[in-house]
């Protein structure tokens, strides 16, 4: 694949346009075309104008059969929106998301989506215009040291100072973004490089021998019979084995291989926030989400298990807040990841494999089947079923106030895990993770590691471009949506049938929840009851023909049915119980045994008194 050394050019693989004169800007667009880019997101500006002009001319010369543009360039309200649209597109499609912005503020507005994508391993290629090479370092207009800034956030950043390297650099950026552990790659292109007269070559990448050698080692890694035997020896001794599946299952397209492994050996599966959709959450062996706001039954199963198989998961602090107390009864922990640095980073493991997840799972399944290995897990399955029954998600179903959980359950009755759902960050994000069904990969788009408020709306827009015919719902909060509310207009500008739900609890609900627990209820800067925004009017002003506010429980079912049935863009604000909390909760610095389950989910232990002093944990 991409790791192969460059081939000598032969007549047969010569690009039809090879030798053609092109500007640097045209080269960039031609590489996009060659890489299969079907949509890009970006905001114009002085230092990127040559590329924008080249996109315009390319689209004029290459109409699609239906008259549409070959590579539409979608314009957000703010470059951060473009970055999250590209990320939403990438998360929903599995392809590389592309964003193109100008220098200085255009590029610095892109820093948050780039870091967000790095933290969640999402493949992006971001092209930033830069001031001319002669002006770099002169404090020129709209100049920022993007190579330095992005170098600290991205998988890699190129500053192209030699126009002769532009074509190979562009192609290499796509290879880097999608290979190994995926991530964002930034290409900073000075304006004079965009205007340089070049000859199109049509092939060739940068050598990057260090990266490619390491990549090849990882991609070619295989499990020996001894490796398989060691894992199965431990698995066959285990009485309560558990799979802990993370975002790597999605990134590696390994959901089918995971399904086959579970079918063969019967291990229950709990998923991280990023892993939702990697295993059908409606399956009897699915324990849904684990961690700080995981289901009580998943967290109890982690407490009880004696064997953990971590698949594309990294024991992060939202899962293993106290690594020593995570899965305390596990006698054997195994980990498979594509990134060598994740092995043992947080928690020491007894067995590990660094390599492509699908191949590893296929190999393990084949080995176990060939050796007739059938773990006897009847008792454990019964215990898992009992945990799911006894500690099921629940809330105040008799409340006169609209409960956010009820809203999500009502939406889920329509979508049943088949809609693409994006979220902002906070309580609404956790409720969506807890109360929706997740049946397939790439239907759940959330800012997991960075926790970026404002992610939901632009991510939904990007996802709708990836899947024009699918139902895409942004579940948002009143505070999160404010962060990128300018993108409401982007929804209507492109007439996208995105459905936007704002669960309005008049403030930063998750911050308030922590202030209640750890700061004696002093709601510093998290209350928005004096804020004046009328969200429905705002949506109408941005062209939403369907925009309504839901305030009464008796209208819930009918309103949600009408909202989801509307053909075009639709906006629903729901005034929810402002005191609704996210439970269960494993507090910062607490173990799963100390989990608070709230008033409506039975706990199996006496709740531990809350700490009153502010914790240094976060």
């Amino acid at each position, binding site marked *: 694949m991409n790791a192969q050394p460059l081939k000598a050019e032969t007549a047969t693989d010569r690009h039809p346009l090879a030798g053609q004169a092109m500007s640097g800007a045209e080269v960039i667009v031609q590489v996009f075309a060659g890489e299969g880019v079907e949509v890009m997101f970006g905001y114009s500006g002085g230092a990127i104008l040559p590329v924008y002009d080249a996109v315009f001319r390319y689209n004029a010369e290459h109409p699609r059969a239906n008259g549409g543009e070959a590579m539409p360039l979608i314009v957000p309200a703010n470059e951060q929106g473009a970055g999250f649209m590209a990320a939403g597109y990438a998360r929903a499609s599995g392809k590389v998301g592309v964003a193109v912005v100008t220098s200085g503020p255009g590029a610095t507005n892109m820093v948050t989506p780039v870091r967000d994508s790095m933290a969640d391993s999402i493949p992006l290629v971001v092209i930033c215009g830069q001031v001319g090479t002669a002006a770099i370092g002169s404090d020129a207009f709209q100049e920022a040291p993007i*190579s*330095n800034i992005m*170098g600290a956030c991205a998988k890699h950043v190129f500053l192209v*100072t030699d126009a002769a390297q532009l074509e190979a650099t562009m192609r290499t950026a796509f290879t880097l973004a999608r290979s190994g552990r995926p991530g964002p790659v930034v290409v900073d292109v000075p304006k004079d490089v965009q205007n340089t007269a070049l000859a199109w070559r049509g092939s060739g990448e940068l050598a*990057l*021998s*260090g990266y490619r050698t390491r990549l090849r080692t990882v991609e070619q890694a295989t499990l020996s019979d001894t490796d398989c035997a060691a894992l199965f020896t431990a698995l066959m001794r285990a009485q309560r084995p558990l799979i802990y599946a993370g975002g790597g299952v999605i990134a590696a397209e390994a959901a089918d291989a995971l399904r086959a492994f579970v079918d063969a050996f019967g291990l229950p599966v709990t998923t991280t926030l990023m892993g939702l959709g990697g295993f059908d959450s409606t399956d009897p062996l699915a324990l849904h989400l684990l961690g700080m706001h995981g289901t009580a039954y998943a967290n109890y199963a982690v407490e009880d298990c004696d064997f953990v198989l971590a698949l594309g998961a990294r024991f992060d602090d939202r899962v293993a807040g106290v690594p020593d107390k995570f899965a305390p009864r596990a006698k054997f922990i195994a980990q498979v990841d594509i990134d060598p*640095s994740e092995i*043992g*980073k947080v928690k020491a493991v007894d067995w590990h494999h660094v390599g492509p997840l699908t191949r590893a799972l296929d190999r393990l399944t084949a080995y176990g089947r060939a050796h007739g290995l059938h773990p006897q897990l009847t008792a454990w399955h019964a215990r898992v079923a009992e945990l799911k029954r006894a500690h099921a998600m629940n809330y105040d179903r008799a409340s006169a106030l609209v409960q956010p959980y009820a809203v999500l359950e009502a939406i889920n009755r329509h979508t049943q895990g088949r809609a693409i759902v994006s979220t902002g960050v906070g309580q609404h994000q956790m409720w969506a993770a807890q109360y929706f069904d997740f049946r397939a990969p790439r239907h759940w788009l959330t800012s997991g590691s960075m926790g970026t408020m404002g992610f939901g709306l632009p991510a939904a827009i990007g996802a709708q471009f990836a899947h024009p015919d699918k139902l895409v719902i942004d579940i948002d909060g009143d505070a999160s949506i404010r962060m990128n509310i300018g993108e409401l207009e982007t929804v209507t500008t492109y007439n996208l049938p995105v459905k936007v739900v704002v669960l309005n609890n008049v403030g930063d609900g998750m911050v308030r929840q922590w202030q209640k627990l750890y700061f004696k209820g002093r709601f510093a800067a998290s209350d928005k009851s004096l804020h004046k925004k009328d969200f429905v009017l705002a949506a109408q002003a941005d062209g939403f023909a369907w925009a309504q506010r839901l305030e009464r429980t008796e209208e819930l079912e009918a309103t949600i049915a009408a909202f989801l049935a509307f053909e075009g863009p639709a906006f629903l604000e729901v005034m929810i119980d402002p005191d609704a909390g996210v439970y269960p909760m494993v507090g910062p610095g607490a173990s799963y045994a100390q989990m608070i389950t709230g008033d409506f989910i039975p706990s199996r232990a006496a709740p531990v008194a809350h700490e009153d002093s502010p914790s240094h944990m976060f």
Partner: protein
Amino acid sequence: MNHTLSILLQNEAGALVRVAGLFAARGYNIDTLTVAATHDPAVSRLTLSLQCDDASLSQILQQTRKLVDVLQVAHPATALAA
């Protein structure tokens, strides 16, 4: 414990900053740092020393190997002991 690392790096714009930035961002303090040319003008050799325990050393070696411009990372003391 004191460790000395030897890193071969592609001579690209910003490559040195990325190595130094990685160590800073992950909370490692570089005690000494030398950058020298090699027989290949496209490659530089960084020699740096730092104080850390063995687990931290293993982690920073792995993280350094994730930098695209890095060709090779060696910890000569480990190599000698092995």
